[in-house]
């Protein structure tokens, strides 16, 4: 059976699906090939414990590009984002609780510090302004800084002009956000330790950095990014888990005529005369196409799927040095009831938002120190949510699921250690102990669980070294350096082979941007041929 397509998309993660949907919408004959039996990649919902459905990996949505939601009419294909209200930080004998209701948050902050309560408002306004400034970067195509031709810098020109036009204060803040550590940045504004720690936590998610590491401040913005897209609620949890997002995109892609195949692992990208001409599946089946767009990460795409020798040595070396260094794990719990926090008993609203185990900046930093030297944090940062409180269908009546994103769990363990069963068990126990310190009843509630080490994330989801963003989002791997300097424009040294996953600008997260921009760039290159 020989079929010919205009384009093959490798990987049915949300970016691959977005890419396919845009290509199909433009009239291309597209097939998506997904290795697993389920779609979604890291945005996937699975029934791990009978009756309990988990957002196995990613668990909240904040960055999904509104233009994608609009262009693909995702709500019509079943996408619904349910509100996730507030962030609750349990402490020993006290708590810090911020809500979407600004007035209540400010009242709560006054309990801690009058100046912080005042600064919080000003801070929020400034951050929303910054998010507005940054947004266009998320849909820009990076140039090549290795060439002096003005054309290469055109991608920066509008940005530079807008930057120059910003009020002094915002220019200042932008530079600080791009260069400072989250902790240093927040130190300028606030004095309440749990507040700074909880806010700074967003800066280290998915990175191998600590809250005091320079370059982590930028991610503070992400939290505000979702909130500025007014009409569509862009911050919350998707109905049916994050797999719900992927399924909606898949449905939109199919409606445009894209074909989607699961259990179709690609074994090789076929290259003839320096051009990608199709793929060979592990089953031996070959599929031909004018172009191949890969949403798998660069290690998989370039080092596993291409014959050695296809790439020039320099490019291959640059791919090899691209840093993954996964640092996160996930513990998904099936619960018989709701956890009860000693510091704020009851089943109130505080359980309906994010529950952040981030009591102090030093706590966060020590968690990082453990990972630096190759062990999981003895007391980790945990970002937990209980999706069943807003989407009860995820578990049998009266039961709950709790999703715990845990940092740090380094992929590379010290002293040649490996993520074997014993390590995974010890990691699980550490997480449950940390939860139980604040909510002692949790131990008795657990009726089922799923523990993912970074190695599990690599093996199950297919993300190299378990890096949740398909490669670290550190300054040197952003924009025109992502994933390889000189190759940030979705193209690769192999003609007809493109990148469309999180390893391309603007990077990871349930955003869809790389898939969309790659599709648009590919379409542009076809029409100019």
């Amino acid at each position: 059976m020989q079929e010919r397509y205009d384009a093959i998309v490798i990987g049915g993660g949300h970016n691959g699906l977005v890419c396919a949907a845009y290509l199909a919408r433009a009239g291309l004959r597209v097939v998506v090939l997904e290795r697993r039996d389920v779609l979604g990649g890291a945005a996937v919902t699975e029934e791990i414990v009978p009756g309990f459905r988990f957002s196995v990996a990613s668990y909240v949505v904040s960055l999904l590009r509104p233009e994608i939601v609009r262009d693909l009419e995702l709500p019509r294909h079943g996408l619904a984002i349910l509100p996730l209200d507030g962030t609750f930080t349990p402490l020993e004998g006290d708590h810090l609780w911020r809500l979407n209701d600004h007035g209540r948050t400010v009242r709560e902050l006054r309990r801690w510090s009058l100046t912080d309560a005042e600064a919080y408002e000003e801070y929020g306004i400034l951050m929303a302004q910054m998010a507005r400034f940054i947004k266009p970067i998320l849909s820009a195509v990076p140039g090549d800084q290795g060439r002096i031709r003005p054309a290469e810098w055109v991608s920066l020109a509008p940005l530079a002009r807008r930057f120059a036009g910003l009020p002094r204060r915002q220019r200042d803040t932008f530079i600080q956000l791009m260069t400072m550590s989250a902790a240093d940045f927040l130190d300028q504004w606030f004095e309440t330790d749990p507040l700074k720690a909880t806010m700074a936590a967003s800066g280290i998610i998915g990175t191998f950095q600590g809250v005091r590491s320079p370059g982590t401040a930028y991610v503070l913005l992400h939290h505000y990014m979702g909130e500025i897209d007014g009409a569509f609620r862009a911050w919350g949890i998707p109905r049916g888990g994050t797999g719900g997002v992927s399924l909606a995109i898949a449905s939109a892609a199919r409606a445009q005529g894209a074909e989607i195949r699961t259990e179709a692992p690609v074994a090789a990208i076929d290259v003839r005369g320096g051009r990608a001409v199709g793929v060979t599946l592990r089953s031996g089946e070959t599929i031909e196409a004018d172009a191949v767009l890969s949403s798998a990460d660069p290690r998989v795409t370039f080092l596993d799927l291409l014959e050695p020798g296809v790439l020039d040595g320099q490019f291959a070396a640059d791919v090899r040095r691209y840093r993954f260094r996964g640092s996160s794990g996930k513990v998904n719990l099936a619960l018989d009831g709701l956890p009860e926090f000693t510091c704020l008993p009851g089943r109130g609203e505080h359980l309906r938002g994010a529950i952040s185990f981030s009591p102090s900046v030093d706590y966060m930093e020590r968690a990082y120190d453990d990972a630096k030297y190759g062990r999981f944090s003895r007391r980790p940062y945990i970002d937990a949510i209980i999706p069943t409180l807003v989407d009860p269908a995820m578990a049998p009546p009266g039961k709950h699921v709790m999703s715990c994103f845990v940092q740090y769990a380094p992929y590379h363990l010290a002293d040649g250690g490996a993520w074997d069963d014993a390590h995974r068990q010890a990691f699980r126990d550490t997480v449950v102990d940390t939860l139980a310190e604040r909510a002692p009843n949790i131990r008795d509630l657990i009726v089922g669980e799923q523990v993912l080490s970074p190695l599990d994330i690599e093996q199950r989801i297919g993300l190299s070294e378990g890096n949740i963003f398909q490669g670290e989002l550190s300054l040197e791997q952003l924009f025109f350096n992502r994933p390889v300097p000189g190759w940030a424009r979705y193209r690769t040294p192999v003609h007809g082979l493109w990148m469309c996953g999180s390893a391309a600008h603007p990077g990871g997260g349930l955003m869809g941007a790389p898939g969309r921009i790659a599709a648009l760039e590919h379409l542009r290159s076809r029409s100019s041929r």
Partner: protein
Amino acid sequence: MSYDAIVAGGGHNGLVCAALLARAGRRVLVVERRERTGGILDGVVSTVGRLRPALVAELELERHGLELARPPIRMLALREGGAPVAFWADPGRTAEGLAAVSGADATAYPRFDAHVRVLARFLGELAEITPPRLDAGALGDWQAGLRLARAYRRLDSRSARELTRALPMAAADFVGEWFATDAVRAALAARGSLFTAMGPWSAGTTAVLLADSAGNDGGAAGQTAFATSGPAALAAAIESAATAAGATIRTRAEVARVLVRGGRVHGVALASGEEIEAPVVACGVDPKTVLTRWLDPEEAGPRLRWRAGNIRTPGATAVVDLRLSGPPAFSGVDDPQLLAGRIVVAPGIDHVERAFDCWKYGGLSERPYLEATISDGSMHVLAQWVPHDADPDAVGDLVVAELERHAPGIGSSVADRRVLTPALIERDFGLSGGHVYHAEPGLDQFFAWRPVLGLARYRLAVPGLYLCGSGAHPGGGVTGGPGQNAAREILAD
């Protein structure tokens, strides 16, 4: 006597600025708090190889008594349980020695050295320009932009890409891409952490590392040049160049305030109450001091005071001077020539990082990262990372104990010692936080936003007020760069 300009703070940058202004015919007064000029150069610094060659020529410093010595050895990296590794001025010779440690590292070294030189050359050119304005009026600032573009164009496209990638990297990652041996990595990366509050795993330490080799012949091993009669001789030479050009130097005169009248600088007020008038005041002290203490809060305004108060000045370097009764004997060192450069105790990346970790939580590591030089029977040791108000005796003991591991018996040959902790540096030299670079050289206080965005062009808040010390671009170290750039801008106005 009336002056055209007052230079407040007579560190080497202040002196450079004064000398250049005087040579341009301005009547200049240098006001220095201490009994001698030179600032940190006076008895604290050891190597002066970062000094701009063009400045040495322009100020004819050799005629004014400066003599530089460059030993063939740059750095001796002491190791744990292994012979020390020598880094020579000649990269080929270094590679020969590295072969005993790791063949792969020996092969990589000359290429790495060349790579560092290419990137550092660009930073050297960057150091010479006045950072461009980054606001809407910036179009008029084409000159800086043009120079920048020209320097950038001289890089081949691979290097240009590597530059943007390297600057924000952690030094540990930067060297990790080239070398396999932990000790070699650490020896080369540590310089990115020297005088900073950043361990080798902190993003941006590569920029510090490269800046150290910018505009000099340092390369991968870093510069090692001495003023033959001691660092103070350099200060004396610059001072001599300044006075020969007509500048006046006043020591033991502490500036307390900058005088402003009608929205313009009018002079300075000394702590004694005396007022000295001049339409231009160039400050060789740190920017936080100028903006939050010297300038009237009304003139600065609350917003600028807030920003200036947030300039990061986490001093973390201590200096320990040891007078030795006899030459030290380091294990594995038979040739005294090996001890003629910088002697570095940074035996592993994690080892150095752990010293930094302690400091993060306010502690003092048992195993500090050290850089030492030996001259005239004294050993001059820099220790990272030392808490601001650490007990000087404890720091001294710790440093000696660490040296004892590598040079058994050295402790008993210490005849005398002097310890300066960050708190003492702050007290003696009037530097906020005791930060020897006047402001942390982090990515957030770099180039066009050093010390803060909008004040990077040497002009501070009020017309007539300038910054000419290490808190300005291109930053700290004995370069003369900030002083020279500031003088150029003052003359241009």
